[in-house]
Structure formats: structure tokens, C-alpha cells
């Protein structure tokens, strides 16, 4: 995926990789260090927590935990690549787009996801996909990362039935 990003961007100029909390952040970190190594560069990296921009805050029950947002560079005129673990309905990305708009006006915004599981509810498509999977709505797709879960893996499991 790191290579594809560099290719799509025509190099590392103006590149800002922004990971979505939570696991998108770890993936973004891995991608940035891969790019930095291969291209001998220092690509800017940020983290975005979209909780406060969610469109379902009224229905989600007790308040979800708000993670850290850190956009250390000015994104005006830059090429921002959003990185997330799983793309499903597209609502997280919509929220991320809204939030990025409050930080500035990038020249372009592109989306890189590790897993695309289909099931879109909004017209949002990734530019770079690690792997497409097909699952139905009764199943969940979870990405595990070393830093938080102890290992790197993708797990498909049945959803817990509603009580």
C-alpha cells in the first residue's frame, strides 16, 4: 500500500498521511515509516479522531470515548491521504472529510484502506485498497494491530446477537 500511495502521489512532495483513530493511526504509522525508508523522506503524519463529527451521536447511547486528534502541519494545498483499517458504510470517512475541512483546504484528499468490505451507505470510494472481502451484515471485520492487540491480523467473526 505504501508504494501505491507514493505512485498515486507522484512522489512524496506535499504528502500528508492522516490515520483515523484508532487502528488507522497505527497503520498510518507503519505506512509512513515504510515510505520514509524506501524514499529516504520525512513524510508528515497526523491522527484524526472523528467521534465529534459522527452523524449518529444522538442514537449511540452513552458518550463514546474521544481519542486524540493531531494534525501537526498546515494542510492547505497539500495532498492528504486518509488511512483507515476497514471501509464499510463510508460514514467514518464522511466525518473525516468534514473534520479535515475545518483544518484547511488540501489540494486533494485520497483514501487508503486496508480492508474494503463493501456495504456502502454513502457515495465514498477508496483510491487504494489492501484487500477486498465479501461478508454479510451479520458479520464483523476487525483489524488487529501489534501495538493495541498484540498481533497483526484480520479477523472475520459473527456479530454478537442483540440482547
Amino acid at each position, binding site marked *: 500500500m505504501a508504494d501505491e500511495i507514493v505512485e498515486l502521489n507522484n512522489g512524496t512532495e506535499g504528502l500528508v498521511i492522516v490515520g483515523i483513530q484508532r487502528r488507522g493511526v497505527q497503520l498510518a504509522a507503519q505506512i509512513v515509516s515504510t515510505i520514509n525508508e524506501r524514499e529516504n523522506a520525512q513524510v508528515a503524519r497526523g491522527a484524526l479522531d472523528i467521534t465529534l463529527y459522527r452523524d449518529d451521536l444522538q442514537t449511540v447511547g452513552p*458518550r463514546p470515548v474521544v481519542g486524540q486528534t493531531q494534525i501537526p502541519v498546515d494542510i492547505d494545498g497539500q495532498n492528504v491521504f486518509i488511512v483507515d483499517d476497514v471501509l464499510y458504510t463510508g460514514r467514518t470517512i464522511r466525518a473525516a472529510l468534514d473534520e479535515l475541512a475545518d483544518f484547511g483546504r488540501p489540494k486533494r484528499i485520497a483514501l487508503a484502506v486496508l480492508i474494503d468490505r463493501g456495504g456502502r451507505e454513502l457515495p465514498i470510494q477508496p483510491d487504494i485498497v489492501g484487500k477486498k472481502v465479501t461478508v454479510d451484515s451479520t458479520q464483523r471485520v476487525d483489524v488487529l494491530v501489534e501495538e493495541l492487540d498484540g498481533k497483526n491480523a484480520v479477523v472475520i467473526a459473527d456479530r454478537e446477537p442483540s440482547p
Partner: protein
Amino acid sequence: MTQSLGKDLLGLEPLSGEQIRLILDTAEPFKEISERTIKKVPTLRGATIVNLFFEASTRTRVSFEFAEKRLSADTVNVAASGSSVSKGETLVDTARNLEAMRIDMVVIRHGASGAARFLADRIESNVINAGDGTHEHPTQGLLDLLTLRDHFKRLDGIKVCIVGDVLHSRVARSNIWGLTKMGAQVGICGPRSLLPNSIDELGVTVFNRVEEAIEWADALNILRLQLERMQGGYIPSLREYNRVFGVSRERLDRAKRDILILHPGPMNRGVEIDSDVADGPFSVILDQVTNGVAIRMAVLYLLSGGKPELAEAAKRGGGV
């Protein structure tokens, strides 16, 4: 999911250490929002919040207003007169009228202890206590805790002394509750006539002289001394108060270590605190103000939680 705070924030006494920690942790990301160019998130878009202030207070009201607007809520300020009798409309009627206008949250400051609870028991909107009589001022207590935690990186075991008119201070009471629940040690210092008699039953250490308090404490929270206290016969004069209890550079220099200085404001420079202390290197008074907005955003965010039944329906519908 996070632990719910319930419908209202009326004080720190009813909260658990867990709930206080939740609010402090939630305030962290909100601090970041105030550093952005666009200091706004859409989280409370469409929510209507009324700031119902029966006592004049520019500082607290403005802080709440910033918090509300940065969450994209619609805010209305109502400055009601202090005495319901003179106004003709009772607190009950004010509450019912507001509710009939379908507001979501009320931030209330009132001169009578228990007024926030009175309102909360009678309306369905969330009620946030911005100071009721001499009872509690929970958001001030919380921002003081956040400021202390930012500096000391922890709260348990630190020694905080509240200096001043504890008897009449809601800020002092909220601080005592918040600090003890988070494991800090609490001291109070002031003229005996301004310290409640039974206060040691709350596990608080009492210091008669400010020198002893400075010797003991890691941080001082200095309360504003009000002119009425002199007129009420509690202390002879402001001048004597400053001579005996004023936190001055000389007194602090005699301490063994650097002591953090907090003050809820507004300050009476030269009475309870000298200018070189207020503006000195260990004063975090301005940090308190910054943290105030973040804490209030966190509280508004946490209280405005959606209904659990809708959450269940949403879960069955699909993911994010």
C-alpha cells in the same frame, strides 16, 4: 462504552472517582480543539442550551458560552434577577417555561444552595450547576483538578491547600469533594471564623496560619475574599486579612519547594494574593481559564448522550 454521568451535573459530591476521571480524560481532546484555527466541532449542532444566570458572572458565563458555541450548539443567555419574589416569577415557573420551549440543556447559576437540584428535579432537560449558593461549583472543581493533573501528572497523594473563606465558598466545597475522591490530600487555611466547624469530619487538615499551609502544600488554591465578610463581622479588615493570610512572594520564598498557585478568579490583588504571586512563574491561573472551556465542553458532551433505546435500534441497523 463510557460510564454515564446521568441527567445532570449538580456537584462533585455525588460523583465517583471513576466518573471524575472520565470527565478529566474527556477534556483532553477538547483542549486541542481550542488550539485549532476553526475552533468548532459539529457535535451539539441543533442543541439548544440556555445559560440561566441569576447571579452576575461574566467569567463563568462566557466560558460556558465558548464551550457551547465550539460544540456548535445554539445558546441563549437569560440574566434573571436574584430574588424570585422581586421578579414575580418563581424558579419553578422559569423552569417550566424553558421546558415548554423545548430546550436541551440548562446551565444555571443561582444564589440559593440547592437551586440546581430544585431545577433538575422538575425539568427533563439536562441541568448543569454553574454555582448554587455556597453549595457547589462542579465545573470549577473539575478544571482545578485538570490543571493540577496537567502539572503533577497525577492527583493521588498530592497536597492541596485551599486558602480563604471556605465557609462561604462553593468552589472550596467542590474542590474538597473532587480532591478527596481522586486521592489527594486536602488542607484548608483561613481565619477560624471563616472555616466551617465540622470540616475536619471530611478528612481535611486545618491550618491556622498560612505559613504552615505553605510549608505543607504542593499547591495552593487561593479563594477570593469578599467585602461582605468584613461587614458581616467575620474578620476585622481586609488589611489585616492580607497581613496575616495573604499569599505573598516573601511567604512563598520561605517554602521548601515551588508551590503551584491556583485562583478561581476574579482576584483581589493585594488582599488574598499579591500581584507578583498571581503573575509569577508558578501561577497556573491562566491555565485554569483555558482548561475551563475544555472541561465545560467535556461536560456538555458527556451529558448530552443519546437515548439507549435508539442506540439499540442503530446497532441492529448497521455499522459506522
